C-alpha cells in the first residue's frame, strides 16, 4: 500500500504558510490580514499533526501531543479572531476605514 511521504505534508504546510505570510505583507485591509494569519496558523497545525502521525512519541510525552497542540492552537485562533474583530470595529468607528495603513495618528 503506497503511503504519502511525510515531506509532502510538510511542503504543503510550508506553501500555505508562505501564502499566508504573503497575504499579511500585501493586504491592507485588517480583516484580510486576519484571514491570512489564520492560514498561517492552519499551516502550522498541519505540520504538528503530520509530525505526530509520522513520528513516535518520546517517552514521558503524551501519545497525541501534536494533536493536543493543534487543538489548543485552534482555541487560540478563535480567541484571536474575536479580539481582532473587536479591535477592528473599534478602529473602524474612528477612521471609517478598516485598512491598516490608514491608522496614522501615532508615529515618530
Amino acid at each position, binding site marked *: 500500500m503506497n*503511503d504519502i511521504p511525510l515531506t509532502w505534508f510538510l511542503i*504543503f504546510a510550508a506553501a500555505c504558510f508562505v*501564502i499566508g505570510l504573503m497575504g499579511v505583507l500585501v*493586504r491592507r485591509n485588517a*480583516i484580510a490580514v486576519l484571514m491570512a494569519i489564520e492560514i498561517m496558523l492552519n499551516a502550522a497545525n498541519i505540520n504538528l499533526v503530520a509530525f505526530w502521525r509520522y513520528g513516535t512519541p518520546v517517552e514521558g510525552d503524551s501519545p497525541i501531543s501534536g494533536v493536543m497542540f493543534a487543538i489548543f492552537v485552534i*482555541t487560540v485562533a478563535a480567541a484571536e479572531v474575536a*479580539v481582532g474583530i473587536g479591535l477592528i470595529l473599534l478602529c473602524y468607528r474612528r477612521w471609517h476605514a*478598516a485598512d491598516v495603513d490608514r491608522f496614522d495618528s501615532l508615529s515618530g
Partner: protein
Amino acid sequence: MNQILFGVIATMGVLSALGTVLARNLVHAGLFLVAFFFLIACQFVMLEAEFLAAVQVLVYIGAVAIILMFGIMLTRNIQGDDTTTVSRAGFIAGGLAAVGLLTVLIFGITHEEGRSGRPAWNSVTTRPAIYPASARKSESQAAAINNMGLAVGEDLLTRYIVAFEAAGILLTAALVGAIALAIQEGPVSDDPSDRVKSKQNAESLAADEAESLLTSSRA
C-alpha cells in the same frame, strides 16, 4: 491512489489559500478561506486525526468564518469590496519574498538530516502502522487514534489541565474584552451628520441591526 487524493486536496488547498490572499472581494476571500479550512480538515482525515477534523470544521467554519463575515459586514463593507489596491511593486516584492522563503523552507524540509537518532524527514515515507500486532508504535498511540475523543479528554484533564484551564480563561477574556471593545456607548461618530447620511442606505441599516443583535446578548 491516496497519493493522488493527497495531490488533489493539497492543490485545492493551496489554490484556495491563494484565493483568500488575492481575492479583491472580502466575502469571496472569506469563502475561499472556508474552503481552505475544509481542505485542512480533509488533510487531518488523511492524517487519521478525524476528531481534530471535526473540531476544525466546528470551530473554524462554524465560528471563526462567521465572525469574520460579521466583521466584514460591520465595517459597512456590505458588498465586501476591498477599497484599497495593492501597488504592483508591493505585490511583486511580497510575492518574491514569499517565493524566496518557500524555496528555503522546501530546501530545509527535504534536506533535513535527522539528528540525534531520528530518521531524516525525507526518508519517512510510510507512517507507522497503528494495529498493535504489526506495530513498532506503542499501543497507547494506536488506542489514541482509534478513539481520539477519549484520548484528548484524558490528556486535557491530566497532563494539559493547566493549559486547558488557561484556555478557558483565555476564551473568557477574549469574549469579555471583545464585547467591551465593540459595544457602542455614547455618540459614536465624531461627525454626526456623516452617520445620518450613511443611515440612508440599506446596507448600513443591516449592519446596525446586526450590531444590535450582537450586543443585545450582553444587555
